[in-house]
């Protein structure tokens, strides 16, 4: 057998039989540029006006670093929590038929629809030291409101639907026969979940994680009510940007924003690479 190696190099995907490839590609690029690229490049442009030394001074500032750490750290933890419990929620909604299932299913979307400030105020009322849940946790020495833990809880609330809604459709597609096949080969329930079901769901779970994480990093409305906003302790990066803006310190605000942008982009890129790798393997 003598097959020529595939031609190396980058090229446009072959246009399909459906016409309008040029038109739709042009439209997509123009739209993305208008909606995303121009505002973002404006941001980078403004912060570039600062010059390297000033930019670095703002970036290396302890208050900025702490705010970034809290924002990304809390978003990461919240997304991780959501992955575990969101997957369980999706499982229950897909696999079991119980009275009120539709209502529970609809409830998952509430964090999407609710104004985030309302969520923040509600959570603060519940978790404040004299609130319904807060006064139960107080004797245990757990303080939720006005601490980083409060931020995590707000972000868990906000991020849940992202995980549930990405995992649910994939879970619905799981063929019952595949589980039965694993059982007939002698696998017990635990082995079926860990070796057969979970690997099939992993790409969807990663997507859900990245969506919840991205949302958590950018979340502002619900967090500022519950966080207490103590500099160095529970101040998130978006809030710091707002503070700088209110001080008319536009350069510092855009600098922090640019750093957030770069970090978010990097993390989403990594997650995307992981996904395309797994998709290539499992078809």
């Amino acid at each position: 057998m003598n097959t020529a190696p595939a031609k190396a190099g980058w090229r446009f995907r072959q246009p399909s039989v459906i016409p309008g490839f040029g038109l739709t590609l042009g439209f997509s690029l123009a739209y993305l540029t208008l909606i995303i690229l121009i505002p973002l490049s404006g941001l980078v442009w403004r912060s570039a006006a600062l010059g390297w030394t000033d930019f670095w001074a703002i970036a290396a500032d302890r208050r900025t670093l702490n705010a970034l750490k809290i924002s990304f750290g809390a978003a990461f933890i919240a997304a991780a929590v959501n992955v575990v419990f969101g997957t369980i929620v999706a499982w229950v909604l897909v696999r079991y038929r119980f009275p009120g299932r539709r209502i529970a299913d609809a409830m998952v979307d509430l964090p999407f629809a609710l104004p985030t400030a309302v969520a923040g105020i509600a959570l603060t009322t519940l978790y404040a030291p004299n609130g319904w849940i807060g006064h139960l946790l107080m004797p245990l020495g757990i303080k939720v409101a006005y601490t980083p833990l409060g931020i995590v809880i707000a972000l868990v609330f906000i991020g849940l639907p992202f995980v549930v809604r990405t995992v649910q459709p994939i879970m619905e597609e799981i063929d019952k026969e595949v589980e039965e096949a694993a059982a007939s080969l002698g696998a017990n329930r635990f082995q079926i979940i860990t070796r057969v079901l979970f690997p099939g769901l992993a790409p969807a779970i990663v997507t859900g994680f990245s969506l919840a994480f991205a949302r958590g990093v950018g979340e502002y409305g619900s967090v500022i009510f519950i966080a207490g906003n103590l500099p160095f302790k529970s101040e998130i990066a978006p809030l710091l940007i707002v503070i700088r803006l209110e001080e008319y310190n536009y350069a510092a605000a855009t600098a922090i924003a640019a750093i957030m942008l770069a970090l978010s982009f990097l993390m989403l890129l990594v997650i995307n690479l992981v996904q395309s790798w797994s998709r290539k393997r499992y078809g």
Partner: protein
Amino acid sequence: MEVRVVNVRKEFERFPALHDVSLDIRSGELIALLGPSGSGKTTLLRLIAGLERPTKGAIFFGEEDASQKSIQERNVGFVFQHYALFRHMTVADNIGFGLKVRHGAARPSAQEIRRRASELLDLVQLSGLEKRYPAQLSGGQRQRVALARAMAIEPKVLLLDEPFGALDAQVRRELRRWLREIHDATGHTTVFVTHDQEEALELADRVVVMSQGRIEQVGSADEIYDIPNSPFVYNFVGESSSLPVKVEDGQLWIADRPIGLSAPQGAPSGQALLYFRPHDVELLDGCSGCIAGTVAASRRVAGTRRVELEVGGERQRVEIELPVDHPAAQKSRVAFRPRRWKLFPAS
């Protein structure tokens, strides 16, 4: 392994899918469950596998009552209609799965598992595809991988649910012959479900014909085809023709004419239905004691001619086969007598 199904009844939410079914499967036998959809054949297969529990009755593997054992404990190889391969695993990992999930000393070493997998791939004629993923295989190849995966655990019984249902006709015929060879080489007791009579009659040692949750007949291809024991089997397996007749004085009559067939011992007098195969008839010239009718329609079917005759005053239509060179034309009279036939009570 011998499998015995004893008086099994299965209901799904009060709806009976199987009524009181009994079946003995001999060790090393290749047996087909044949029936239309809704006849309960897949339910019976899933009961033997342990994917369902019987509502009543028992299933024995050898001398052992397996009815209350889970599918994991039964050690059966099950091949699903749509293969149900694990798509995130390579072909080799799919085949080795059943060995890998074993515990402790029962689990072979990784090397041994690899060796078994490639041995089985040789058996199913897919050597060299160890590293492929199921998405990269054709339907026929997936079917073979599914079978290799089921055989990897050295099952007591091999169960196949419509094994060739999703394949095109050419591949089907090939795989049919190939499955027979594998069965003869390995000697597993094998049960497969099919709605294709050709497949069942060609492949199986014995065929179980099922209808509406009951077993109609169990027998070899010859027995099922030549001595069907119910109108359903007559209709479902092969071609059949039927005519309403009257039993009187130990003779069969159509209207007021005897047709030259004597009624079997013990047949009650009165209305009955006469069943026969359209090709299994004797053509007659004169007619003293025969069935005679005028040709109403005629079709050429492969090597023969199929004619529809109108018989008797009530113009009952009946189909028989004629040699291609038979001179019968439209409206001409044809007389015949079935060679092999059976009488069933009129419903």
